[in-house]
């Protein structure tokens, strides 16, 4: 059974010029024990989506439509008090900057114990201290350091302390927003490895939000590619990497250098995502897509289902048969950039 079901979710931000449609009609499911990666460039709505799920949208943000079903209950209809009860215990979040997520005036142990005691009243000091020790060992920190303050920890240690805290109540869903972006590769590798082993142990599911395609390739079962508030493509990680149908996925994948390849032409997607206050009709990626036609600019693409992938492109069929090599060639994208160069200025 799916643990999380997001249906037709619309999250808007109130602005002076009208609502910005940060997340616009997003639907997906997360199965128990499944790892899902959400990738896309800044502003595509991936962090907003996570914030909406855990219920920490900023004041200007609101859910305009749609539902977020978690274990059968619609999160969007819950009161704040009800949601707070779920936080940490059922759904926990590992934020990008552990620096700002830990309270500087309390020791790490006090913060974790507080989370435990709030959610499990009646847990004794001894027991919660025991949990802290276990969690510290799990994330590879010396339990004796639990009585340190956040500033006494290095960046990597703080991030691990955050993960220890996120895991302390064995939540069934973890949201990790760029969990390792601020870290060095070696630390990143260790943390990702630990996260997946812990996750297996407590059988929780995870949503990993990142711009780093390689992190997703290594840690996730399925991938959601978001663009300008919408899902561009979604499906199993192998298919997304080997045979994507959406030109944006193809472009994004080819924009990353691979350490295993000696010479590689990187692909550059020129231009910028559209304004979300008044998004263009038709496909949102049309303006930057080298293969866009008038149809793309006018008509919003329907989902195309094939090979386990759900792809929102009018030409998914043709990409499968003949257009893929064309879309996979950085030259194609450069030409498209050159062609629009004259008209791009505002």
């Amino acid at each position: 059974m799916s643990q999380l079901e997001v249906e037709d979710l619309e999250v808007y931000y109130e602005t002076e010029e009208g609502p910005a449609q940060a997340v616009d009609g997003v639907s997906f499911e997360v199965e128990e024990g499944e790892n899902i990666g959400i990738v896309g460039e800044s502003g595509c709505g991936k962090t907003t989506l996570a914030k909406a799920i855990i219920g920490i949208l900023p004041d200007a943000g609101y859910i305009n439509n749609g539902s977020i079903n978690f274990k059968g209950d619609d999160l969007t209809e819950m009161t704040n008090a009800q949601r707070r009860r779920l936080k940490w215990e059922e759904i926990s979040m590992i934020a990008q900057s552990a620096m700002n997520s830990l309270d500087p005036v309390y020791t790490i142990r006090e913060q974790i114990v507080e989370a435990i005691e709030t959610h499990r009243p009646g847990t004794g000091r001894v027991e919660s201290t025991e949990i802290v020790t276990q969690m510290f060992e799990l994330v590879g920190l010396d339990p004796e350091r639990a009585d340190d303050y956040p500033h006494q920890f290095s960046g990597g240690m703080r991030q691990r302390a955050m993960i220890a805290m996120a895991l302390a109540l064995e939540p069934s869903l973890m949201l990790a927003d760029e969990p390792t972006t601020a870290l060095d590769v070696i630390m990143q590798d260790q943390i990702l490895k630990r996260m997946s082993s812990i996750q297996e142990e407590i059988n929780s599911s995870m949503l990993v939000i990142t711009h780093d395609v390689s992190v997703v390739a290594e840690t996730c079962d399925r991938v959601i590619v978001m663009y300008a508030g919408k899902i561009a493509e979604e499906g199993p990680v192998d298919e997304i990497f080997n045979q994507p149908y959406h030109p944006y996925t193809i472009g994004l994948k080819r924009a990353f250098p691979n350490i295993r390849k000696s010479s590689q032409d990187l692909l550059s997607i020129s231009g910028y995502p559209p304004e979300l206050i008044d998004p263009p009709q038709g496909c949102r990626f049309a303006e930057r897509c080298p293969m866009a036609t008038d149809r793309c600019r006018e008509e919003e693409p329907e989902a195309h289902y094939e090979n386990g992938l759900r792809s929102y492109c009018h030409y998914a069929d043709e990409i499968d048969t003949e257009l893929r090599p064309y879309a996979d060639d950085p030259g194609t994208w450069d030409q498209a950039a050159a062609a629009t160069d004259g008209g791009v200025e505002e």
Partner: protein
Amino acid sequence: MSGNEVLLEVDDLKKHFKVNQGWIASLVESFGRGEPDYVHAVDGVSFELREGETLGLAGESGCGKTTTGMSLVKLHDPTAGDIVYDDTRLSEASDAEIKQFRQNAQMIFQDPFESLNPRMTVYDTVAEPLRIHDIRNETARVQRALEFAELLPAEHYFDQYPHELSGGQRQRVAIARALVLDPDFIVADEPVSMLDVSLRAGVLSLLDRMTDEFGLSVVYISHDLSLLRHMCDRLAIMYMGKIVEKGPTDQIIENPQHPYTQALINAVPVPDPAVGRERVELQGEVGDVIDIPTGCRFKNRCSEYIGDVCDQVVPPLEAKTDFEQDVACHLYDSAEGYDPYQEMTGSPSAAETGDEPESTPADD
């Protein structure tokens, strides 16, 4: 690639920073009790930068790569060691020679949101170096630099302020500013790490073009080895202020020899789910750069630790018999016949009599 002449020679460069201490401690120190502490950010780094070459400096945060880069363009004065540019030792250079050097050495910083003055227009930002160095033909040069950086049409950007530009555009302005003096070499410190994924490739290809068309030498500083592999001819891997391995990029990435380089490269995720990566966990964290350990700086985390020689003798970065790159590790035989065991306290056989229960013979 173009000419093989050495453009810049870095000779045993050291940069130590005094640790900030309270006034009582400095008072005690002024009475001659106790030594001040120093952070050994860069601690004896030597390499050459050839004409038209791209060199990558890689390592984790705090390894000294940025300090090295800043010393290269004389944003830091070295504590010891020297940089030789155009047959001139910079420590002995005259003011005119230093000015000449500054004109030829430019830097691109990581964060284009902070490296551009928010009160200066794009035109003034790019023209400022020309004014400082008293170079004429300002407008034409600024225009040419902006056009090269693909900010088109250039006039359109002249009167814009940084806040009106996107991150990618700002970094292009920073590149134009670095190029406007027609320098010999550029130090680029994490030039794309603050940019969005889809824009990175564009800036990278611009940097690529810059090296090709201007015959520039570039030192790229980054923690991202995938990126460095894509951009650089040669690599130098740093750990705690020292270079541990140096050589042709493909050699180092495909056949790393230093245990640290191996761990570092091994930790890089691969954007391909079909590639199963063997994951080796490196113990511990980067050591203390104030109180430097004796011998090899990596010894406490090293999986190949071979005993007293690692504890006592600092491994020099040198050519080894079996491969192309230079490595600073006692595991491999020196091509020059250097024997670290001779420098150990006690007899040459001290390695066997050490109290390390697990020490294995060096030739293993």
